[in-house]
């Protein structure tokens, strides 16, 4: 056995817990998870059946954690996991899964398949089977301040621009504030609009806020690659920054996996509760709305639909909040089929969008979303994840549907603030 294989198997072994064992014990091979998965649905290839993507993890569980399997292993019978197996499963685990969570919602015995994919990636990456783009992004983010390298100067520039367009003073690294905003590198790269929008909303709501130059990047490639060490390191930068500035609440920006990373995985990655709260920006806006601090004037008259980011809604629990906000500013809001908890993935999540090898497969998988968009024929799609946002733009363009605009819900709310 090679050293990397052994490292991978050890990492995988660490992931096997009672839920995993109960899931594999319960699976009745009914195949219902297949039809929930965009990759199977759009290709018809049974290789993409969600539970099949976990075959190696199932094999390890069966060989090492079950009575019969252990007996077989003692007799030298159980089928071992080899390097070739890992190579074969690499594309299944990374290229054909956006960790969208639909399979988890339909499995009749209740298996959280998505959570197991997340776990299996720990073993894959430890054995050197992570996609090179994700490995590269992890290295760049570990060495710099974002997966795009060091974005601190770019951030400061954007803050300055946002200050200028809004006429609101924005102070970075300001201690004792109510909110500390994180951003995704996409939002920093694409312009100053998100920062400007938050500045306007915070001013209107009467809350103090800041951005930390020591922990502003929200994306966390560690959870996509499946590398706990990388993920924990990136989370702790934000935690340290928030503690240093003594903020009450950290705002996770419009980014799905970032929310998953900082809100749900983060405390477990660092092994303790946070001394502050974490909220997704849309939760914050909805709270302001409920408190009467967010009032708007006028509505967008276009035909608008909403795209639910998987990690924010299905896997993040934010479903009604964006709809309440949409209804404040959209005159003509129409939902696609399956909208809400069972919404279909944009096709780019879970690291798939960054993984070039997966490009063609991703384009195929987008078709279900495409048909649903076509069916409601919107002028624009509103969303609350910067990565869904850019994926939708790219896929719409590739399908010659780029007359449909993609909008950020936060920016839209800021646009209609009354004064």
């Amino acid at each position, binding site marked *: 056995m090679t050293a990397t294989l052994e490292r991978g198997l050890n990492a995988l072994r660490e992931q096997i817990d009672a839920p*995993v064992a109960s899931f594999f014990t319960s699976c009745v091979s009914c195949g*219902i998870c297949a039809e929930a998965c965009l990759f199977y649905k759009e290709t018809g290839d049974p290789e993409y059946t969600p539970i099949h993507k976990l075959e190696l993890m199932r094999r390890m569980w069966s060989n090492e954690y079950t009575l019969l399997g252990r007996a077989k292993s003692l007799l030298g019978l159980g089928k071992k996991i080899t390097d070739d197996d890992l190579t074969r499963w690499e594309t299944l685990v990374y290229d054909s899964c956006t960790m969208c969570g639909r399979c*988890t919602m339909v499995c009749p015995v209740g298996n959280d398949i998505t959570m197991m994919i997340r776990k299996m990636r720990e073993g894959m990456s430890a054995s050197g089977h992570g996609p090179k783009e994700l490995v590269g992004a992890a290295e760049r983010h570990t060495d710099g301040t974002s997966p795009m390298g060091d974005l601190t100067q770019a951030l400061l520039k954007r803050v300055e621009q946002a200050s200028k367009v809004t006429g609101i003073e924005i102070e970075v690294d300001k201690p004792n504030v109510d909110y500390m905003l994180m951003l995704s590198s996409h939002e920093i790269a694409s312009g100053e609009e998100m920062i400007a929008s938050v500045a306007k909303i915070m001013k209107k709501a009467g809350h103090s806020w800041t951005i930390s130059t020591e922990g502003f990047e929200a994306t966390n490639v560690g959870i996509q690659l499946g590398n706990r060490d990388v993920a924990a390191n990136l989370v702790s930068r934000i935690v340290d920054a928030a503690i240093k500035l003594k903020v009450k609440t950290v705002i996770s920006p419009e980014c799905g996996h970032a929310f998953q990373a900082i809100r749900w995985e983060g405390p477990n990655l660092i092994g303790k509760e946070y001394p502050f709260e974490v909220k997704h920006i849309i939760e914050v806006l909805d709270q302001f709305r409920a408190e009467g601090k967010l009032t708007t004037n006028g509505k967008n008259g276009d035909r608008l639909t909403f795209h639910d980011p998987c990690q924010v809604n299905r896997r993040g629990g934010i479903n009604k909040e964006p709809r309440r906000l949409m209804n404040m500013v959209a005159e003509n809001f129409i939902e696609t089929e399956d909208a809400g908890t069972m919404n279909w993935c944009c096709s780019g999540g879970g690291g798939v969008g960054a993984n070039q090898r997966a490009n063609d497969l991703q384009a195929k998988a987008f078709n279900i979303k495409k048909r649903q968009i076509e069916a409601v024929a919107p002028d624009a799609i509103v969303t609350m994840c910067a990565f869904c946002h850019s994926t939708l733009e790219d896929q719409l363009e590739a399908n010659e549907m780029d007359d449909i605009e993609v909008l950020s819900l936060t920016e839209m709310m800021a646009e209609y603030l009354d004064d």
Partner: protein
Amino acid sequence: MTNNQYFDLLMWARTTGFDIALTIMVGGILLRVIEIVVLGRKKDFAKAKGSPVTQGIKTIFSRSVPRKGTMKEAPVTYIGGYIFHIGFFVAFLFLGAHIALIKDLIGLSWPDFNKAVIETAVALAIVAAAALAYTRFTDPVRRRLTGWSDWFVLIVSVLPLITGYIAVNKVFGVDGTLWMAIHILSAELLMVSFPFTKLMHAVTFAMARYYNGSIQGRKGAES
């Protein structure tokens, strides 16, 4: 074998055979459940938005109903699955002789169903099992997932239904002794294989659904 020997076989199946099967089944299930539970689960440090425990318990039941729109994606699996499970349990739990056996074991009893209801349930369950087997042959996804153990489980679950029908209706002659013995032995085969096969899902589904519901529930997400 003479009738007398059939009778001996039947008596063995009813007494010693049954005791062995029951011991293996109950002991095996306990071991398998313990083997899962001892693996444990790390404490979750993320501040809960919803209520993990309540939703976990709720999901044990709610997952019995297919999510809206999913039934049409795999109708044979869904409908066949329901009919098989319902038919099997109707025959298992509401046949007079079974109720008497259960009363002997645990002291509880309830009214039985009449023969026509039981036999309809058995017939439907057998047809449903045939339909499920058919999709395992013909549908690419099911074919990919189905291994020898899935076939084994399907066969040992159907055998008691078929042999029970034959025995009760004396299909092969007036003396049902041999077939009654075979029926009981087939049920014992089911019991003995239970802890070592996917039949375990009949116990662990509750754990799996609970975990799923509690993970999602903590986040305030649906499950």
